[in-house]
């Protein structure tokens, strides 16, 4: 009974997280991206708490805490700053339009289901139902990075991908060892900071944060 509830809750949580990922695909303003990411991170935090509760793992509470601080508080704040700094920049014409994006994302999730079939079969954890969704989220994050032109949206895509991996870890293994998790958080933070610096550089040198301008280096 307990496992069934756990299983349902975790799948529900994963679905919500994936849905926030989909939000990125049809919203265009940078602000919406930030908000979607923030909410996704909140959902992820909750999922960690749920897994920690049902899986009797105290470590996951710590992880949830770190995750909340980093991905709900710090990163969205920086993202907000960035979008205020570049008010004119909206994700105008992505390489793939919204309708197609959604279809492709749907297909990617289906693919994730097909590919992760062995994972679901192998595992006996109650959370295993969410595994395809986690891999799907990784794909969706990748898809956002590929198709969106603004440096900022690419960063968000990258963070969403990171969330997908975190989700995978949480669902599949109840979280990787804490020390590693902390290291990963540190890396994510630093990586984000570097990227943020570069967004400024790009804006300064190219007078826009459109990445498709970066095409001087070829062949």
């Amino acid at each position, binding site marked *: 009974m307990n496992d069934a509830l756990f299983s349902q809750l975790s799948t529900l949580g994963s679905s919500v997280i994936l849905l926030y990922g989909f939000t990125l695909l049809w919203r265009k303003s940078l602000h919406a991206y930030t908000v979607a990411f923030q909410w996704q991170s909140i959902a992820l935090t909750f999922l960690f708490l749920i897994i920690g509760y049902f899986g009797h793992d105290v470590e996951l509470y710590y992880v949830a805490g770190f995750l909340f601080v980093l991905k709900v508080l710090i990163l969205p704040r920086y993202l907000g700053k960035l979008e205020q700094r570049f008010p004119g920049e909206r994700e105008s014409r992505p390489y793939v339009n919204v309708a197609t994006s959604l279809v492709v994302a749907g297909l990617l999730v289906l*693919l994730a289901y097909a590919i992760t079939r062995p994972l679901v079969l192998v595992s006996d954890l109650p959370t295993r139902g969410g595994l395809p969704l986690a891999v799907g989220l990784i794909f969706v994050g990748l*898809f956002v990075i*590929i198709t969106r032109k603004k440096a900022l949206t690419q960063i968000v895509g990258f963070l969403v991908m990171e969330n997908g991996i975190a989700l995978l870890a949480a669902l599949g293994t109840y979280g990787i060892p804490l020390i590693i998790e902390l290291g990963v958080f540190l890396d994510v933070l630093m990586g984000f900071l570097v990227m943020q610096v570069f967004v400024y550089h790009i804006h300064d040198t190219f007078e826009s944060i459109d*990445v*498709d301008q970066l095409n001087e280096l070829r062949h």
Partner: protein
Amino acid sequence: MTWLLVVMIAGYGIGAVGALTLGRSLFVRAAATSGAIIGAGAAFILGSANLLSGQTLTIQISDILPITGFALRLDGLGAFFLVVIGLLGVPVALYSFGYSAAYEGRYSLRLIGAMLNGLLLTLSLQVMADNALTFLLLWETMSLSAYWLVVTEHDQPGTLQAGGWYIAMTHIGFAALVAMFLLLSGGDAMSTSFAAMRANALTLAPLARDAVFLLALFGFGSKAGVVPLHVWLPMAHPVAPSHVSALMSGVVIKMGIYGLLRVTLDLLGGGPAWWGALVLAVGTVTALLGVLYALMEHDLKRLLAFHSVENIGIILIGIGAGLIFRSYGLMALATLGFIGGLYHTINHASFKGLLFLGAGSVLHATGTRNMEEMGGLIKRMPWTALFFLIGAAAISALPPLNGFVSEWLVFQALLGGFNIPVPEVAVAFPLAVGMLALTSGLAAACFVKAFGISFLAIPRSHEAEHAHEAPLSMRIGMAILALACIALGLAPFSVVPLLGGVLAGLGGLPDTRSVFTLDLMVQAPAGFAQVSPTWIGLGLLILLALIPLVMRLMHVNRKRRVSDTWGCGRIGQTPRMEYTATSFAEPLRRVFAELYRPTKELSIDFHPESKYFVKSIKYSSRITPLFDRVLYDPLLRLIQRISRQVRRIQTGSLHLYLMYVAVILILLLIAARWF
């Protein structure tokens, strides 16, 4: 004999190090020359000692060269080529002392000296290599040192391009050789020793054996300059310093022959008849095309380079015939074919070396390689002219010089073709005979042109008029080779049995040392035919002495008066009225127009008043070589086209780059999941 090997290596080493470290350019040249002479001399003695004693020298050093160790083994075949290297190495080294003096201040004498010694060293060790890695290491080092020598005059037009072609073709061949050796080394053993290969060749699948043979033919053929892999040769030989051209033409390309024999005959132990037929066909085509393109050349060194192609063809004809005979068990005839090939190898080394040195002296004296700007040099540089004439006569296979002997041997081998039981194969022999005869006839025509236009008649340019004889060291270098041409021509009765000894045991060939000797004669097996260049030479000499004597006895009028040349009533003979190299070759150009497909451009500038008065006529004609047209140009275009397509991958779009990652991820995931 090991001490000789040590002396050889030390000689070259001292030469190279001395050239690199000494200060004054005179010392640099002296060091390079003396080192090379010591090394090449030791190589010559080592090779000869081995040939005469028949002892095999084996050295294995496992500390040098990881994986397989450094292995040397000097057997008869290697010793023969070592003799060739030494024979040419000494005069070339001597010649380089005088020749490279002109380079002072323009090009790096150090590099030339060191690389010359390096080249000779790798060549000398090459023929002793006894495992694949040693062989390949030396092979590639040899190519590389030759490359630096070729691009010595890097500021001259065409030099770098020529060097590029050379290294490219030789490397493609090298790649084939890597594949060949490793295919032959077989599966399990770490060893790549030749002994292991010999054992492995017996159990190799026929298809793999065929592949090994084809790769060997390709790989060694690219070094030897077999058509259509010869393209680098007429480019690289002319631009290299002349003593290097001599060395390249004389021995470097012969390494292709060495390798081919080593692999097909020794390691593989011979093969089916079609191997030989292929070599024979390739050889015939190579010989004929080589000489045909040589005829159209007016750059003296390019002409010689094309003749190298031709002579490689002749050598291959002999080897091909030998391989065919061997496959039918006609061992005596097979030996004859191989002897012909080997004999021609050493002959070509001597006369082509001589000719290149001669051409170098001309270049040294006139500053041009263009025959149309030479003429009359026989009066200004009589020694060079004499030596060049000897070389020209030798390469034209005129008795009693050495070229005749080896071509005779090859002819005799081919004439034995009727012994082959399979008519389809046998019929190839008369064709080869015809083509070989045509080749040698055309070669004679070509050298009449080369010598006649360059050395005879009236100088065609200011430079030719003020040409000077080559310095002593260069003349001695040429003299040695001229003597070699004569000696090898007059003494086949002692050379041929030695070659029989070289071949004994290779690929199951019998020891024929006793069969081929008959006093001062050379005899084809089974008493098929015999000839004695020695007696003929002696006869000619006696007659040359006797005729004037008899004429004197008969009181023939011995007065001589020098007068103007008869000009059909015209007064004043100028160089512009002379027959040019182009016009000399014109009849043959017409005969073989289908092959050459010359493009002509004729523009006549008429006098404005009347079209019967011509102000100027400009005529130019160009021949694009066949294989440039049908093979290399399309191939290069193809590579360029693929390259253009591949370079599109790097478009500059980050999104696309990320896309590649995603696509390959998904593809591999699908593959991992379902395949």
